[in-house]
């Protein structure tokens, strides 16, 4: 792991990787959206509103995956003092919050025609909203430090504690009776017809690559700011 501890080595890999992830992700996302919107059949009960799934599900998974990434990076930061761990955790926060928000908004739009309501306070919807608020808290906390590149330990601890919400979101529809239906895609298989499942996985791949590109961009920006700050400090001292 410490092979990548050197920011210069990381940048050598991240620099060509960023546009590759971005363009591949953009192509897959656009393809999945066009496929999902125009070339999938209407659903037996929901009709055309089923097509929101191609944005809603990838956004939900990435919102949850983002915090899982923050938690893992935070542990690596605290235990191994890996210099890039904190930077990567901070870089995940804004894209993660964005995807959690997309999940909540598309879910609300989907809920109105299918369930008959924009919002209910059931276990799934509430725990997902809590995830969004945790992201906001994490962003505020990690920006609270005056040092630009500083990766505070308070934020890392918060990132680990907040991870307890991730299994709660996942289990919410199993533990508690909820308005939201149970999981369609589990390790055991899927109850989504392949007509929807295949473009859905293309969308998940596309959105994930875009997410990765965004995180790399933000990490590179953070490292550049750290270098500027270090240089300024040296200039001020001399």
């Amino acid at each position, binding site marked *: 792991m410490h092979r990548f501890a050197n920011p210069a080595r990381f940048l050598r890999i991240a620099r060509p990787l960023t546009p590759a992830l971005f363009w591949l992700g953009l192509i897959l996302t656009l393809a999945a959206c066009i496929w999902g919107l125009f070339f*999938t*059949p*209407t*659903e*037996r*009960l*929901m*009709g055309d509103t*089923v097509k929101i*799934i191609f944005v809603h599900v990838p956004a939900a998974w990435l919102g949850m995956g983002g915090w899982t990434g923050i938690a893992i990076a935070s*542990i690596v930061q*605290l*235990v*191994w*003092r890996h210099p890039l761990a904190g930077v990567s955790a901070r870089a995940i926060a804004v894209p993660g919050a964005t995807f959690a928000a997309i999940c909540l908004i598309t879910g609300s739009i989907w809920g109105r*025609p*299918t*369930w*008959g*309501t924009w919002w*209910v*306070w*059931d*276990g799934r919807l509430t725990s997902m909203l809590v995830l969004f608020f945790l992201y906001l808290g994490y962003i505020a906390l990690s920006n609270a430090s005056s040092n630009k590149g500083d990766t505070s330990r308070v934020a890392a601890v918060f990132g*680990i*504690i907040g*991870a*307890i919400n991730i*299994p*709660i979101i996942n*289990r919410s529809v199993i*533990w*508690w*009776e*909820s*308005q939201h*239906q*149970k*999981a*369609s895609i589990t390790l055991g298989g899927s*109850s*989504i*017809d392949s*007509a*929807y499942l295949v473009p859905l996985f293309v969308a998940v791949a596309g959105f994930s690559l875009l997410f990765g590109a965004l995180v790399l961009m933000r990490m590179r920006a953070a490292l550049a700011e750290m270098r500027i700050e270090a240089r300024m400090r040296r200039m001020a001292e001399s």
Partner: protein
Amino acid sequence: MKPKHQRLLLAIIAVAALVGAGLIAASALREEASYFYTPTTLVAANVEPGKAIRLGGMVQKGSIVRGGDGVSITFTVRDQRRSQKVAYRGITPDLFGEGSGVVADGRLGPDRVFVADSLLAKHDENYVPRELADIDMSAAAKTKDTLVP
């Protein structure tokens, strides 16, 4: 012990404690955090008539009776063990129908009939194209939903 290993041990203990606390809290919330009563939990909770509650379950096949005024409707909500009669006046959601899931806001009447103020449809986790739905209704039978009788 190297400081790195000390921190690792501390992190493992902290995460384990956190997961334990989360699981204990979640299991304590088991009943309270449910969004609605099913007919079975409704009986177990012994809710008095007139108290605002939420009831959910599957609409029993053949139970929907529409009134002559066009807006009154009665039907039976089922879970795996029990059923509960529901009366409602108003427009039903598009996805409402026999065999589909429903969540109703309302209260128990003195005659033990649940009087609903509002109805929400509950979709199951199966996604089936319309042209396949006639051929393959087995998907609905495979639902993991515990509400299915």
